[in-house]
């Protein structure tokens, strides 16, 4: 077999699976977004109605609020994931006793299935009985109405998701730190450079190309994270005020059966994310190979 033939045979099975289970539904969803498919039309067949669903999406008064909230949600999450993940990785990269035990314990949130973690945190944010408010009371703070206010619910979901997501960044950072050659630090020490200088001039710049792909992926996953927001705020409570884009669409599709509308909304979400990722990705490619 020629090299080229081998390559194509290697790609084929993945392409088939992705084509059938991802690409085809994508096209089909686009078709649905141009119809009036809903609870009443799903039996008799939907009608083609052009871009009306898209017009409806753009006429949605809360669209920009949800979009803004999604952006803030993504930004804060990824920021704290990277900050906490990299900081812990830096500590664990020192010669400390028992560091593989620490590492194993700190990976725990990643291993725990998301829906279990989210429901447990929801219980902990309960106003009267949740352990967080009980703890605050012990420290003589007044209890916080986490789940019954817009800001509180957002903060609760944010804390939960930061907890869930930092181990991934930590692991990526640990891998990156191990790949930095020791000689660089030795050379810096001979030149009399302090710890802070080494961190800024050696560690962080060399960590950047390793972290960038993880950040691109993390941004995508957070932007589209349905589970955490949905479960912690119990479907957007209080009163549908705590939605991000994906939870709002999920509700429109599966609680209200507005399939055509949800399909159009999903396309819009995808396009926004595609734009964001493209910018991110370009920057990642540039930083990896030097501008």
């Amino acid at each position, binding site marked *: 077999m020629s090299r080229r033939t081998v390559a194509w045979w290697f790609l084929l099975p993945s392409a088939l699976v*992705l084509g*059938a289970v991802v690409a085809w539904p994508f096209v089909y969803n686009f078709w*649905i977004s141009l119809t009036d498919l809903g609870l009443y039309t799903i039996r008799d067949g939907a009608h083609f109605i052009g871009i009306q669903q898209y017009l409806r999406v753009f006429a949605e008064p809360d669209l920009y609020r949800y979009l803004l909230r999604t952006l803030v949600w993504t930004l804060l999450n990824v920021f704290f994931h990277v900050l906490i993940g990299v900081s812990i990785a830096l500590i664990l990269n020192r010669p400390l006793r028992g560091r593989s035990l620490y590492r194993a314990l700190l990976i725990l949130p*990643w*291993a725990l299935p998301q829906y279990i973690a989210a429901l447990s945190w929801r219980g902990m944010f309960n106003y009267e009985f949740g352990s967080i408010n009980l703890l605050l009371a012990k420290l003589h703070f007044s209890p916080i109405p986490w789940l019954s206010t817009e800001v509180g619910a957002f903060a609760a979901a944010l804390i939960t998701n930061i907890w869930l997501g930092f181990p991934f960044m930590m692991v990526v950072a640990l891998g990156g730190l191990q790949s930095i050659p020791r000689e660089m630090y030795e050379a810096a020490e001979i030149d009399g450079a302090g710890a802070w200088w080494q961190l800024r001039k050696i560690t962080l710049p060399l960590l950047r190309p390793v972290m960038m792909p993880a950040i691109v992926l993390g941004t995508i996953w957070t932007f589209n994270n349905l589970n955490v927001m949905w479960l912690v705020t119990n479907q957007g409570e209080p009163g549908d005020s705590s939605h991000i884009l994906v939870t709002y669409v999920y509700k429109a599709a599966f609680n209200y059966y507005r399939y055509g509308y949800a399909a159009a909304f999903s396309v819009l979400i995808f396009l926004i994310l595609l734009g964001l990722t493209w910018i991110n990705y370009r920057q990642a490619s540039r930083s990896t190979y030097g501008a």
Partner: protein
Amino acid sequence: MRTRLCSLGWHLLLILLVMATIYPVLQIFSISLRPSNALYSTSLRIIPEDASFESYRVILFEKPFWIWMRNSLIVSFATAILGVTLASTSAYALSRFELRGKNPMLFGILTTQMFPATMLLLPLYLLMRNLGLVNTLLGVVLAYTATALPFCTWTMKGYYDTIPRSLEEAGLIDGLDELGAFWRITLPLAAPALVITFLFSFLAGYAEFIVARTLLVSKDLYTLPLGLESLASTFQTEWANYAAGSLLVAIPVVALFLLLSRYLVEGLTLGGVKG
């Protein structure tokens, strides 16, 4: 002296972090020990005064826990094996061969991660219905494989990129063909990334809820997440049972993670944005 004080400080900080990390899990444990299925208690004690393991007995012997476990294990192992096979081959092609449109292909793979869940669920359901795969484990396995594949392909490709091409060339000179060089030389060297791919695909099947909810109808095909949810949503939520079930579900994956945490650090090379 100063360094010793310093490392004591780091240990204190790490212990605090570990406590914050495992507290929510302890909380689940605490609920699982409450005898009256009570979710709420104003006590901060982890082990309640009237602690009992009754809910574990109920989950293990009175609920169809083992059927859910069996289904989940079938689904997860099938997804993992399929995921490793597909990702290790396609990533190899993307890492080693000069293909036209390679970068668009890599970005295209990334693109599939950007579809919101709502975008694929209904079409996926209709597709599976046409193929007769609704309410079959094969249907969910295919869906999970496709979900996990992009990340796994990226990880594998990043790792292959770190293995020198010259090793394979040496193999080719020694009389191996392209397939042999891949199978005998590169694949064994990529073991850490294969472990990650396996773990990640396994988890994609083990912990997923929404697709399973959409595609599986019969109770005897329920996977663990669906089974647990049925505890939470029946007439009255059995909180202690739910918590006990959650822990029993989490233990195998947590164990797997702990066992493999060394490989995690070695194998997770997402690098290689460019080809």
